[in-house]
């Protein structure tokens, strides 16, 4: 029997919930985000979804087969430096690894850049007498007294990161230290480098582990509360969390490897774009996910979103696999102000969900991007969020007038300035995602979603000379929907560090067995596995990823085939190979994938009040723009700009010169002349 599948995307301002029901219909519900405990907003969003479907919450959840969730708890903790108080236990004599950053500094020609504060300050990094050698042999045994002293010094920390040299070779010292910490400091979040990233290179491993300790407690607490809250309303099915790499994993795994959720929030939108490309949306796509607090931009070229392992979030290295997403600290809730130089600026401060923009009437007195959109006539005070949130025009006017006075211009001119400025910032972000990566954005489609993107998509696309933008009918819910379009993923990595030989068959087989077994605990559908390896020539230190799915593992020629796959990949990437040289297989990787089935669902917008033409401010005066209800448009319907399209969750400005067509998927595809 077909059941509900629900995606939940917690943004800075709104929590968006998309449910695809047994009837194949996708429904979208929203709730205000609750930053003090995001799970409250999630439960409320589910409640709203049930209401939209004409069900009780209990009935909805009883008929739900899975919930997939994107959370920004880790990201926010890093960005706002509000993570756990972390202590680090590390090999004596090496306590500055995370602060030395291997001697590298970003921005080569900026010698006037203040150094960052380390995530774990030096005064909370404690040396422990122990030492392994490079081959894993014990040079110095784990010294009990020194461990006890370090644990005592760490008392008061909420999380302890245990980072020993060469621990990826043999985690015994780290594990023993972890047990001792757990015993001495109950309730403290403990994480070890060998479990977070069982690979050579201490900076990457220690830094990722420090991040894991920093975000682990808030993420665990949050996911615990969420599970508890769902249990209370009767949900006993699986809850998955989307990770930075775009795959999903169960709650317990996400809590253990919390550093892997650093890009959980924006991953859903990229997953959606990948799914759309797979389902036939043509050309390169640039995702433009503009919410209330921040905007995420990513490139999906040729249907593929690039993964990398060199990711930094808020300046902290997280060496886990992750999507290439650019995050800007500006969105609909960003506050406009006059900067030190006397010029207009937007963000990075945001009014967030509370108090929210001035027009929300919740006590906000500072003008935001949303206030500017209201004052320019882009938004209707009565139909915002389908009428669920009445907008207070007077409050907006008062807030914007104070800003205008400081700038010596009129209130509307100030609103227009805020609008243009935020568009320019968004365009710069798209430039970074495309031009900086050597891709000309003009041939790509700006895939715009999130509550606020529809108001800015045309202007941003025009700034970049892009020919097309696209906005889905349920723009606010696309990230949540994308979470329903990606698969379970669990990776088992083993460092091999040897020349490829016949033993690889057994190595990979064991890993695959472990990966499949873990996946089977979470999932009873069809499981597939892919094999790859990180390989290099003997004298190199960087590996390249080599796909090994075509290899005949039982054949006598297997080691040669593995070597050849590496030579071929090296030649493809770097124009040459050195077939006579030594080849080293560093890491063997197996990813088990659990394909989560279910169709995309077709979104049907709920009915709205008839739309009146609206007065929109342009060039010093108001002009009348027709307004259409997005949900009323038939497939193939065409609209010439200027026009405004409204749905209960988003508003789209189709500017003069734009030709927008409704496609069969429920997307507005706009061509710019």
């Amino acid at each position, binding site marked *: 029997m077909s059941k509900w599948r629900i995606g939940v995307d917690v943004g800075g301002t709104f929590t968006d919930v998309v449910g695809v029901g047994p009837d194949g219909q996708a429904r979208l519900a929203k709730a205000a985000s609750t930053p003090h405990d995001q799970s409250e907003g999630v439960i409320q969003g589910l409640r709203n979804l049930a209401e939209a479907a004409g069900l009780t919450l209990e009935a909805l959840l009883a008929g739900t087969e899975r919930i997939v969730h994107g959370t920004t708890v880790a990201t926010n903790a890093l960005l706002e430096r509000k993570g756990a108080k972390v202590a680090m236990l590390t090999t004596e004599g*090496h306590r500055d690894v995370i*602060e030395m950053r*291997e001697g590298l500094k970003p921005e080569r*020609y*900026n*010698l006037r850049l203040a150094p960052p504060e380390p995530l774990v300050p030096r005064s909370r990094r404690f040396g422990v007498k122990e030492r392994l050698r490079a081959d894993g042999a014990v040079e110095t045994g784990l010294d009990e007294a020194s461990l006890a002293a370090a644990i005592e010094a760490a008392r008061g920390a909420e999380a302890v990161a245990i980072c020993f040299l060469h621990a990826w070779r043999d985690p015994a010292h780290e594990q023993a230290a972890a047990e001792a910490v757990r015993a001495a400091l109950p309730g403290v979040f403990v994480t070890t480098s060998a479990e977070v990233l069982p690979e050579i290179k*201490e900076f990457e491993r220690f830094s990722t582990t420090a991040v894991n300790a920093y975000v682990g407690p808030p993420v665990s607490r949050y996911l615990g509360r969420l599970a508890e809250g769902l249990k209370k309303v009767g949900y006993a099915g699986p809850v998955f969390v989307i990770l930075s790499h775009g795959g999903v994993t169960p709650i317990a795994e996400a809590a253990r490897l919390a550093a892997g959720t650093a890009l959980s929030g924006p991953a859903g939108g990229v997953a959606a774009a990948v799914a759309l490309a797979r389902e036939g949306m043509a050309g390169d796509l640039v995702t433009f996910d503009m919410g209330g607090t921040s905007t995420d931009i990513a490139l999906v070229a040729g249907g593929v979103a690039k993964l990398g392992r060199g990711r930094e979030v808020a300046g902290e290295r997280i060496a886990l696999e992750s999507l290439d997403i650019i995050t800007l600290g500006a969105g609909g809730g960003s506050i406009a102000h006059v900067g030190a130089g006397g010029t207009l600026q937007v963000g990075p401060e945001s009014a967030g969900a509370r108090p929210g923009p001035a027009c929300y009437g919740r006590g906000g007195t500072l003008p935001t991007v949303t206030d500017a959109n209201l004052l320019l006539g882009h938004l209707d005070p009565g139909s915002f969020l389908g009428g669920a949130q009445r907008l207070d025009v007077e409050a907006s006017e008062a807030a914007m007038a104070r800003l205008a006075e400081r700038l010596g211009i009129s209130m509307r001119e100030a609103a227009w300035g805020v609008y243009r400025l935020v568009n320019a910032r968004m365009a710069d972000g798209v430039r970074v995602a495309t031009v900086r990566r050597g891709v000309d954005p003009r041939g790509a489609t700006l895939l715009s979603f999130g509550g606020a993107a529809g108001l800015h998509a045309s202007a941003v696309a025009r700034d970049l000379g892009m020919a097309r933008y696209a906005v889905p009918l349920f723009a606010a819910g696309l990230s949540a929907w994308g979470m329903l379009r990606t698969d379970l993923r669990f990776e088992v990595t083993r460092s091999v560090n040897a020349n490829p030989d016949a033993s690889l068959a057994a190595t990979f087989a064991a890993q695959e067995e472990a990966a499949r077994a873990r996946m089977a605990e979470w999932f009873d559908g069809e499981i597939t596995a892919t094999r790859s390896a990180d390989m290099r*020539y003997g004298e190199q230190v*960087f590996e390249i990823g080599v796909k090994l799915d075509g290899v005949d593992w039982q054949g006598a020629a297997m080691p040669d085939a593995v070597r050849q796959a590496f030579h071929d990949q090296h030649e493809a990437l770097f124009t040459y190979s050195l077939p006579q040289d030594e080849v080293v297989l560093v890491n063997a990787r197996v990813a088990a994938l659990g394909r989560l089935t279910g169709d995309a669902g077709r979104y049907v917008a709920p009915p709205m009040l008839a739309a009146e033409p609206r007065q929109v401010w342009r060039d010093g005066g108001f002009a009348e723009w027709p307004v259409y209800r997005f949900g009323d448009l038939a497939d193939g319907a065409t609209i010439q700009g200027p026009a405004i399209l409204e749905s209960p969750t988003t508003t789209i400005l189709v500017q003069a010169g734009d030709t927008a067509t409704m496609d069969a998927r429920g997307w507005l595809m706009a061509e710019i002349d």
Partner: protein
Amino acid sequence: MDPVTLAVLDNRLRAIVEEMGEAMLRTSYSQILNSSRDFSVALCGADGSLVAQADHIPVHVGALRFASEAVLKTFPEIRDGDIFLLNDPYNGGSHLPDLTIILPVFAEGQCCFFTVVRAHITDVGGGTYGGYNAGATDIWSEGVRIPPIRLGENGDLRADLLAMVCANTRIPRDVRGDLMAMIGSARLGAARIAELLATHGRASLLATVTAILDLAEKHARSILAEWPDGTWSGEAVLDDDGHGRENITIRATCTKAGDSLTVDLTASDDEAVGIVNSSYPNMYSACCMAFAYLLDADLSKNEGAFRPLKVIAREGSIVWANEGRPVTLCTSHCSNEIVEAIIRALQNAAPDRAMGGWGRRFRVAIKGKDPRSGKGFVWHLFHARPGGGGSSAGDGWNTVGEWHSAGGLKFGSIEQAEARFPLHFEKHEFRANSGGAGKYRGGLGAELKLRVETDGPAVGNTAGDGAFHGSAGMQGGEDSAPHRYVLHKKDGSERLLRSKEVSIPIESGEVLHLLSAGGGGWGAPGERSAEAKSKDAEEGYTA
């Protein structure tokens, strides 16, 4: 010029050189390249001018154009498929260890660009292993000298020439692997440029490049125009030349007028017997580097950006040695001192743009046999980096290194170093009190205790400076502590290492105890906030 096309292509060119650099990093064989990133890649115009350069090692920023110019001078006829190589500091190079590969890129039958890859090779022959012969008194004892040669034709390498180059190094396998990586990187760049030429057309792309260079010039001039006009002097002092001559002074007289700057190094001391002399390209590049540090970080580093800069120097001086003098240390010293002298002078014109001195390079190279593999090895010290200087923006960065690399040289993983070399890192942490005091303190240097575990005795060479002189304080900030390197002998004695020594005997089991310099302070120490001082104490940055 359409501004969108301009921006796209400017970034595309930068993306290409970044991709070349990434390929170089990932494919090279030597530790000095794949762990420590001592290489630079660039795209030059058909006349040799610098069009785009990746942000790797700033000391190469103004030097690569001399390489393509030397090729043009040597070979009147450049052909598609040519592969050029050089390292001669008196003919397009900076110092011998830096090999440079140059590939022409053709379109419509004409050479339009060169892709250039310069990489520091672990060993280029000469009087001692590891490239730095502190005992050298002429260039012939520093290693093999390669004027511009055609290493390949029609895209094929000449095996005989390659064998000749490899025959002149102590580590032919690594040098061969590194040369292949350099050629691979240059080919990758050439392929990307060829795609651009095909898409945009030769004339259109070249016109855009001209506009990009002009834009960078305009940007640089607009910054200079804000400074007061005037003439200022600054100096920096080298420890010694390794042959008994101490305190060699570099003197910069800087004149800023309107939107132009002249740097005159004529008053610098005469050339030295030892390896601290500079070649002309390296001296010119050091001036570009200092200039770039005082401009805006996001300014494109290309020919246009350096047009407002005029450099005057005297042949036969320490900064521009007569042909035949040894120059191997010059990319570190006296490069760093040229930068320091210029910044000292120009702190008067742009106090908030000037920064406290960055550390000096004091390298150690160890040669021995690895008991695990039975193979010989040469290891170069990149750990125990010195600190960066304080600035108007705040304290200096800890352990980010020297002026010449400015945070671009990675010291690499200790785990990897121990797996690859018979060395044991007993301690590698910050060295308290090493940063120069100031309103904004210099960054800290490091303390390294390194046990040598070779099969039989090892030998060490040093090459560097800064054992007498710390990093310069600016705007009332204090100089940092200098380096102090000691070898703990098995018999319990301590041997202080000088910065320019060859063949230091090291017994297996002995420990090098290295204390590196911090960065210079910025602003008067009395202006440092109480909060910053108490944090320094709490975190153990000061003791």
